[in-house]
């Protein structure tokens, strides 16, 4: 029974892994590929972890797996956000069919004060 559940979970996980893989190959622009990574890939990881918990039930595994699931959920959107944002800033074009882009014109990229304070710290009389 457990074997079967694990097997199914693995198959699902494999499926979403393939979805992510195919997505990164087939989807037309970088933004959409990020969707594939964020969603399918994270889901696959989570499914793998659940399969693990079921296959090898122990506190240690459960705790570790849950921690990992939490971490994946917490960080995957953050890193895609960072990449998506920089893609916009780099001016990487979206593919045809774009309806609107409200991000283009806002947000100056850096502030003068930060630059100045950075220079100050650079010129510190600093030995090694």
């Amino acid at each position: 029974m457990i074997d079967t559940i694990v097997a199914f979970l693995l198959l699902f996980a494999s499926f979403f892994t393939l979805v992510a893989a195919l997505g990164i190959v087939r989807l037309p622009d970088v933004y959409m590929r990020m969707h594939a990574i964020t969603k399918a890939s994270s889901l696959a990881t989570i499914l793998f972890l659940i399969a693990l918990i079921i296959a090898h039930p122990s506190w240690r595994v459960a705790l570790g797996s849950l921690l990992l699931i939490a971490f994946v959920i917490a960080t995957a959107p953050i890193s895609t956000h960072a990449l998506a944002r920089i893609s916009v800033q780099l001016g990487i074009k979206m593919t045809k069919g774009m309806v609107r882009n409200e991000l283009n014109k806002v947000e100056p990229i850096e502030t003068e004060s930060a630059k100045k304070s950075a220079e100050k710290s650079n010129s510190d009389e600093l030995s090694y």
Partner: protein
Amino acid sequence: MSKKRNFTLKSLPKRIWAFVKFIPFYAREMIISSSVLAYDILRPQQSFRHGIVAVDLDLQSDTAVLAFINLVSMTPGSLSVDLSSDRKKLYVHSMYLEDPEGFVKDLKVNFEKRIKEIFE
């Protein structure tokens, strides 16, 4: 930088309940979003109406904002791209932007409310 949270002991059970309710919702959203994605990826002819739209946020605490961002990214077709420096405006990329206004409204109604229940 972190805003004051109106955190009270009284509201704690309510929040926990909201959180518990949130988990299956989140799981469902994830599965749906991935499945939709799977469909889009597997179909031979791809065409999308996509773009980036701004969503005005009413969330107070950073944690809530973070959770919202997270949720948006995990739901079908949407991906958080950027947050304005006053943390009032979230820019979201969507793969299915047939109706941008409707999309924004959907986000606010469906997700922001739930997040608010948990964190505020």
